[in-house]
């Protein structure tokens, strides 16, 4: 039955791991702005789609040019 020590240790280590993850995420400022990321995550996909459908070749050329600059 002394396996309970192992189980307790594991459960606490897991809990402490998540607790530390929480502290780190707060420290990095994740909770300072809870709105903008929700808008931002919708951008990229549509941008790629637009590039792919509307202006295919010319834009790729421009990107090439910009890189060279």
């Amino acid at each position, binding site marked *: 039955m002394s396996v*309970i020590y192992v189980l307790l240790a594991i459960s606490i280590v897991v809990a402490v791991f998540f*607790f530390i993850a929480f502290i780190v995420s707060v*420290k990095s400022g994740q909770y300072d*702005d809870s*709105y*903008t990321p929700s808008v931002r995550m919708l*951008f990229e996909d*549509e941008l790629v789609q*637009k590039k792919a459908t509307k202006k295919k070749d010319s*834009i790729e050329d421009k990107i090439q040019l910009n890189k060279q600059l």
Partner: protein
Amino acid sequence: MDTTNCYHCGDDCGNTIIEFDEKNFCCNGCKTVYDIFASNDLSYYYDLQSAAGTTPKAVEEKYDFLDTSAIVERLTEFNDGNLQIVNLYIPHIHCSSCIWVLENLNKLNSGIHYSQVDFPKKTVRITYRTSNISLKDLVTLLARIGYEPYISLDDYDNKKKGADRSLIYKLGVAGFAFGNVMFLSFPDYFDLSTSKASGGEFWLNQYQDVFRWLMFTFSLPVVFYAGADYFVSAYKGLRSKILNIDVPIALGIVVLFLRSTFDIIFNWGPGFFDSLTGLVFFLLLGKFFQQKTYSFLSFERDYKSYFPIAVTRIVTGGNEETVQVHDIKRGDRLLIRNEELIPVDGILIEGNARIDYSFVTGESEPVRKVSGDKIFAGGKQLQGVIEMEALKKVSQSYLTQLWSNSVFQTNKSDTFQTLTDSIGKRFTITVLSIAAISTAFWLYHEPGKAMNVFTAVLIIACPCALSLAAPFTLGNMLRIFGRKKFYLKDTVTIEQLAQIDTAIFDKTGTITTTKESVATYEGMPLTAEEESLLKNTIRASNHTLSRELYEMLSEQNIVTLDEYEEHLGKGIIGTKDSNRMKVGSADFVGEPQIEGNLNTSVHISSNDSYKGKFVFHNEYRDGISNVFRTMSETLQLAILSGDNAGEKARLEKLLPKLTPLYFNQKPEQKLEFVKSLQHQNKKVMMVGDGLNDAGALAQANVGIAISENINVFSPACDGILDATKFKQLYRYILASKKAIKIIKVSFVLSLLYNIIGLYFAVTGRLEPVIAAILMPLSSISVVAFTTIMTNILGKKIDR
């Protein structure tokens, strides 16, 4: 007339439509922005949200001060000479298009590395290489695409402070411990009243010490870190001889902790660690909920966020240089450009000044000044360039001196005794006496149980639910008000608002609109021909009054005038065929000045015979007399205006009879007026809008700033009300009163739980599991009750 709306900003294009790329634009500015976006693959901007832009303003030379490296150093967050990071406040950020375009700035300039928008704060953080783009270029670029940053003296003086996240940490610690302790308590919950001696479950008894000491370990950070604020607050309260609500809470936490520790040391029982951690967690949750902040608003602004960082100084030899506002000395010659702010009191040296003091003094019309006149800090130059000589330093100017008043140093919320605190006193005394009586009773009957009962009473009476009632009611009200465009600084403001018995209003900008003024025509009627000539004459003039009048007059065909003369500062003359029309000041038109008229008027004469005048009036907000009439039923009202008495007659008609009206009030007089009312034990609400009201707003119990655009400057206050919601003001006050009633009802509810708990405690039968059930149950039911009630109340406000 067709109404074509601008593709970029969505405004009505009017008569002059600029067509470009098969799209319509209202002005060249908008067209240019579209051009910039379109040629840089950023036209997705318009797909996200149509007409999201704004017309860019001319900014040439305005940001010259950003060439000064000392200023750049202060404004940037990071600067190693090559790479700079700056966080700019951009009031225009309002939709997803804004986020998108600002985060794609690197497409406009390769020097910009990375930009990130914080939408709620309306800021953008930009990392850029100084070798490619300077801060000045960056700001100019932003201004050119219609996202002009707002940079004020405030940014220069105060370095950004890091956000205070300690409450989130504490909440995290308490929640973490609460959850774990709950799990570790499970063996005890299932194993009620059994112990090794009475032959309970063998394995549970075998390991109970491990579980108990683990719980003890988890509760340590809760008591000493997460709950530390309550000890500090209780100590502070006791030192100033106030029994606030934190005293019984702190007492409860201490007793819970000590009793539980002794319980497990001497193996008396499992202790109350689950209740202890749960209590602190719920309390902090209430605190967190109460702490609603509008990060895009600031309630602490003083003149510094209104003043520019630097102005242009003319040094001997006629050269111009940028000088930091704090470095302006007496005798300096300053150059003030169009739309720039006068930073110090001084004497006008050169140029025609037309200064808008409305924000500073409350005068509604711009004032003309000529060379040699004294001009005061805070005014905005409206036309052309002027030169002035500084007479004082910035901090000693007429306006800025107001901030040396002690009102600005005290924090109103600290001195106000909240409803919870006033209950707290009685509550503490009652609990302590119940504890004393029941302990004495048990000492007499069964001394062994006395200590048990004493601690049990203090534990169960810990006013968790009681202290949650106010934070959740008011916190929720704060959010409801926020959705209805009434932004309050904190929850204490709602309690103060509920106690108001006197309301004082500023005139200019508060009960009048700043945008429009109306002109009424007084005099002989004009013939159709004359009307057409009048409109075409003033069409050519750039004077602000002409522009306003032009907008107001009925539409006429555009005809070319035969002759047009403009006499600066006097008026204009237009001739068509044989008709000659003079528009301008009374003297100019040929009518002697009429005494006793304080309102701005434009006089007209046709063929040298006087016709009449257009009198400009302040336009009052919609439904103003209705608002005042309903308010006067329960509140004392007064108008306190910095303007002259020109509107007195009209105001008297609009407002309820016998409303006191005071005119020509200086900022300090307004402050003193509020103070004198408070000495008569009145609870005063001040409603104002400008810097001249700042003193009165700070002094009043509740200072509310009215704002046409909540993103632009409003003085330090307790609440900001969107101007469109002015009509609702009284309803908001009534809603606050009802919110207080909700709190009182939930006090009763939580006291009921306390009484049930006390029954168990006094009889000496308080088991940890009862405390563990009762405490969260009472908290949750109070939270649910207040949330439901405030939401019902919120829905009723609009009806």
